[in-house]
């Protein structure tokens, strides 16, 4: 193999073939997907995220939630994702129509979050969990996200946003824990993670 052009051509063709196969082909196949109309009315699924939830998705990205949490439900017969109560059906490409970047994840140090919004609908649960994971999930190794919260002196009436804290947190009298804009956005995003709508291709 002392002929440079042969090596060049071989290297070019092998690479181009895989690009066509693993990049171009799935892209053109999946790009044809459209939102599904629901049976009950003109409501389409999925919907793009609302403003606050979209901002929360950026907080999720910034803090690398995806390194411990997946957002995908494996089909029945391949793993026990559905038996664990992580979702009523497997996830399908249409669920991710508006996702960019994708946050499928590759690690389950913590549980899957594809339907966390329907599993934990309470904002206060999410805030307590983010501020101190052990409170609602004993034994958890999730980091605390206290930098998303402010502990401040109550001026006048208690803020409506303030966390409903359990007594053993020992928040000093006259103080309250208030979520920052980022924490509010992140919780809005987590609550928006609900992919329980039935889809024909996921039957």
């Amino acid at each position, binding site marked *: 193999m002392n002929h440079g052009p042969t090596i060049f051509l071989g290297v070019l063709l092998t690479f181009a073939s895989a690009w066509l196969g693993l*990049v171009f082909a799935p892209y053109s196949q999946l790009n044809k997907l459209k939102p599904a109309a629901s049976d009950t009315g003109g409501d389409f699924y999925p919907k793009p995220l609302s403003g606050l939830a979209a901002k929360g998705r950026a907080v999720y990205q910034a803090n*690398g939630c995806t390194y*411990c949490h997946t957002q995908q439900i494996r089909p029945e017969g391949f793993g026990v994702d559905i*038996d664990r109560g992580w979702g009523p059906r497997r996830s399908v490409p249409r669920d991710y129509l508006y*996702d960019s970047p994708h946050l499928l994840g590759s690690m389950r140090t913590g549980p899957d979050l594809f339907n966390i919004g329907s599993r934990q609908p309470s904002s206060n649960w999410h805030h307590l969990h983010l501020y101190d994971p052990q409170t609602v999930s004993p034994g958890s190794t999730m980091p605390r996200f206290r930098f998303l919260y402010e502990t401040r002196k109550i001026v006048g009436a208690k803020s409506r946003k303030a966390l409903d804290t359990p007594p053993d947190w020992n928040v000093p009298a006259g103080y309250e824990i208030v979520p920052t804009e980022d924490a509010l956005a992140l919780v809005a995003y987590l609550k928006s993670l609900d992919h329980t709508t039935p889809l024909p291709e996921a039957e």
Partner: protein
Amino acid sequence: MTDPSDAIAPRRTSAAELSERARQARLRFAIDESTRGPVLLFFASSVFWLVIGSILAMIASIKMHSPLFLGDVSWLTFGRVRPAHLNVVAYGWASMAGVGTMLWLMARLSRAEMRYPKLLFISGVIWNLGVLAGTIAILAGWSVSIEYLEFPAFVPPLLTVAYVLVGLWAALMFLDRREKHIYVSQWYLFAALFWFPWLYTAVNLLLVIAPTPGVAQASITWWYGHNVLGLWFTPIGLATIYYLLPKVLGRPIHSYYLSILGFWSLALFYNWNGAHHLIGAPVPAWLVTVSVVASMMMFIPVGTVAINHHMTMVGHFRLLKASPTLRFTVFGAMSYTAVSAEGSLESLRSINLPTHFTHFVVAHAHLGLYGFFSMIMFGAIYYIMPRLTGWEWASARLIRVHFWGTAGGILAYFIPLSYGGFMQGLKMLDAQTPFIDTVRYTIPFLWIRSGAGLLMTVGHLAFAVLFVMNILKWGERRTEPTLLDDPAEYARELAAADATVVEETP
């Protein structure tokens, strides 16, 4: 297939042969002289990033079992430190060490001086700025949050310019070659130089700079995630093994035909592996199946390369006691075989099911990028540096600390964490086991991992000290290469093989 840049010295030589050898030595000296600046810059940068990457790794590792450690600092939350670690070691340490090695090998094997070496400093500086800015950005919370591609959109153009410069300079040396024979290492280097910039720019355009939403992004992510290993680190690593084994042993590679088969089967199959990271994921089934098949086909290039390297080594394992270069290189070559075989098996649905989403995969990734690639780079730097600085390594003891820290460290990392990860996976597959039990189960293994990481970090610090001492020419002047065992024992085998600067310099 002898190594073209250095013939094995015969025992008795005529006057004509002696003058020819002197001429060759002068040429080698001139070639090393031309690549010295850029190669040293890339090596020094890589060692710097290795130390930074080790610190980030320790922080991330400790956080996994003790989440309160540095817990309330936003810049150091686990989800930022982990990608910062990955990007620093992949683009700072491993890639920059790889580029340094690549440039030096390309010059030596082409028997061509590098033209305009000073311009390549621009590439090194841009590269460092890119990695630095990208890492700070990740810690500050601007990560893209796609594995292996976390650097925000302003970094990829910088790194691309740096890569392209390196590619052009290497291509120039290749075109200027005095040596007609294109050695197997050059095939791999040539492929890596061409594949990686294309891969990197294409993927960044589609995912970071102008992304189209949807799950096709996952396919592209893993096409990249797998190919950055398969089409960048692997070819550089294999090129280096193919160079160092014959050089240190003073004997040619076992089989030229196995080399050809290994190269083309790698080019054909590795490209197609990516989607095996998406078994069970919401992507078209054909995509995953194609990648599973390609992953099994990887047994061909991996098997041929393993046989070829093993047959070259046979009868010379004794030298592992003496030569630092050989020790690291052989450890890396064996890890390559092991990690590739494991990777192919992991792509089988039955084995993927318990191992996917667990620490098993983390252990696997480290056996690849560390046990294989990083160990090869250590071996290469031990070989190349004295030829650039004209100074032998200062301390055999520190080299031993480096070897046992890193080799012991990666084994102490890989074996327990693989077992722990596999069991974690089995527990996750039992819906009756509460999820939190799978978390609790892994904690002892994560402590062991931190211990292993500490060993590796100690090794890296020893290496960094050696590196700085070598550049600054500290310690006593040695006229023989620094070996790990009594040199007299190996005098005959090493006379021609592990030739030192002193011998090569006219």
